């Protein structure tokens, strides 16, 4: 029982990282139909940002969070502006295109930082943990969970309270109607991309707390993050949250009970089974389009 409960913060923190990554994907996918395989490299960029900043000041880890957001966001913006906006309406091609970009970015990281993994030293206040009711809560895991909660609340406030967020929801629900109503959809797209890529950068910083940083860091998470998007439903905040938590726990506990190699297969089977019941994921934007 103890071991099972100790798995809880681990499962939740995996879910938290998946969620941070999937948020950007679900909005770029849901809003623009873009499948961004280079999203994983934005995670990597965020992680390397933390690596470069460490040791500069005493609070460099906290500084790394907004800086990584800016770095990854800028990369996303550049990608959208230079390539992706030429590809709207060709979702499958964006997948291949961004994969090509991701190959180049990975190799670039290998040339800049070297192929071996590097380590980011966590700040002192994130080392160790506390025992609550017999459950070990490592500080770093709690921090990741808190960070994800903060980001989700931020995105939620943005979507529901700010005019810019309302415009974004409008474009997700019906792009043409939004355009006719005077919304500059191109600008909304660019901003969504910036936001999503930035969150991936933040996720990258969070990942430095639980493992080493390497050029292929992003590839470990990108597939799971896409599964979150598929299971949660496109462009849906609550879907992404629920699916990330479900997938995080499913991964964590299945690995605990069976072995890691079977867990992935079982997760895949579970998702295909889930799609039999809800082919479009947990939540769907209601519309009159044929499905």
């Amino acid at each position: 029982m103890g071991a099972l409960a100790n798995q809880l913060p681990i499962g939740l923190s995996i879910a938290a990282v998946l969620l941070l990554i999937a948020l950007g994907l679900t909005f770029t996918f849901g809003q623009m139909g873009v499948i961004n395989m280079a999203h994983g490299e934005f995670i990597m960029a965020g992680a390397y940002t933390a690596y470069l900043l460490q040791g500069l000041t005493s609070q460099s880890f906290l500084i790394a969070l907004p800086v990584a957001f800016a770095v990854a966001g800028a990369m996303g913006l550049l990608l959208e502006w230079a390539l992706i906006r030429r590809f709207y309406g060709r979702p499958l091609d964006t997948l291949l295109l961004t994969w090509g970009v991701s190959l180049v970015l990975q190799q670039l990281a290998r040339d800049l930082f070297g192929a071996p993994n590097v380590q980011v030293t966590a700040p002192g206040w994130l080392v160790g943990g506390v025992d609550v009711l017999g459950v070990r809560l490592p500080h770093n895991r709690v921090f990741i969970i808190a960070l994800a909660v903060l980001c989700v609340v931020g995105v939620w406030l943005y979507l529901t309270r700010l005019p810019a967020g309302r415009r974004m929801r409008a474009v997700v629900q019906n792009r043409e109607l939004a355009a006719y109503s005077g919304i500059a959809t191109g600008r909304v797209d660019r901003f969504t991309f910036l936001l999503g890529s930035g969150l991936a950068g933040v996720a990258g910083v969070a990942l430095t707390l639980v493992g080493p940083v390497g050029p292929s860091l992003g590839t470990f998470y990108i597939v799971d993050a896409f599964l979150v998007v598929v299971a949660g439903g496109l462009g849906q905040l609550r879907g992404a949250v629920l699916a990330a938590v479900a997938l995080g726990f499913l991964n964590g506990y299945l690995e605990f009970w069976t072995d890691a190699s079977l867990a992935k297969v079982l997760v895949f089977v579970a998702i295909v089974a889930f799609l039999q019941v809800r082919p479009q994921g947990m939540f769907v934007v209601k519309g009159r389009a044929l499905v």
Partner: protein
Amino acid sequence: MTLGRVSLVVCVVLLAVAPLALSPFRLGLLAKYLCFAIVAVGIALAWGQGGMLTLGQGVFFGLGGYAMAMYLKLEEAGSAGLPDFMVWSGVEELPALWEPFGNPVFALAAVVLVPGLVAFLLGLLVFRQRVRGAYFAILSQALAAAFVILLVGQQGLTGGTNGMTNFTRFFGLDLSDPNGQRAVYAITALVLGLTFLVAKLLVRSRFGRLLVAVRDGEDRVRFLGYDPAVVKTITFTVSAVMAGLAGALFVPVVGIISPALLGIVPSLELLVGVAVGGRFVLAGAIAGAIAVNYAKTVFSEDFAEGWLYLQGGLFVLVLVFAPKGLAGVVESARLRWGRKPAEVVA
């Protein structure tokens, strides 16, 4: 004779004289490219004609390859022995899964049936629920990821990360002998020819036209009374069988099958050639697969890091400037400069 016929004849002649002109090493490389070309035909069917972007073709390639490798390993070990990697990882008794693969007929059937069955089941479950487009692409990619992790994890059954290697004989052919290698090359070239023929017939048939219709307007096809799920499932299965055949031939040609050849990245690499050559034209896909893999060999020999830049850049360039690939470029060049069909000019 049309341009297409001429180039077909030229290609057949080139493939036929290759064993005489090339050193055994280069011939082996060519045979490897031909294996990838077989996969490319399947991808061109599923993706180009059917609009199903399959990012998990490595899975079917691997299933075919492992089925063949299991037979070859058992054949080598003899009736009592165990395959070498099992001895190394401390397995003492032949696992039940391996038993039937000692039979060549069973193994050959498995090469076709196992990938076909997996693709059929996945296709049926997914397409029936109208899960399509990008969703399907992501699912097929997740399948590739899970498959590789499974192969690595089941060390005693599959040889783990190292996979299986050191094959000496292939149905009585000595794989270290140049003549044996030539025979394996000939078989591969023959299978490629047959695959091309089957795909060509399929594309030209009523079914092929239905497939293109499903790609371009799935809902309309449904309203006309057809079931798009069936059309897509059959095509996906055929393309998986082709990948399985290629995997099975890859084992004697290259002499290894391992998870590193089958994961997410190799599965995507299989697409690069098809995209470069032209996904809508079968011959273009074949040419693209051979050319890209040849380029990979050349660049990996000289500077390995450059290849990743080049591959990524090539992909981006092709998608931006020539989404229909080289075949599309040839096509539009022919339209612009070639003999124009008698057209009524308004």
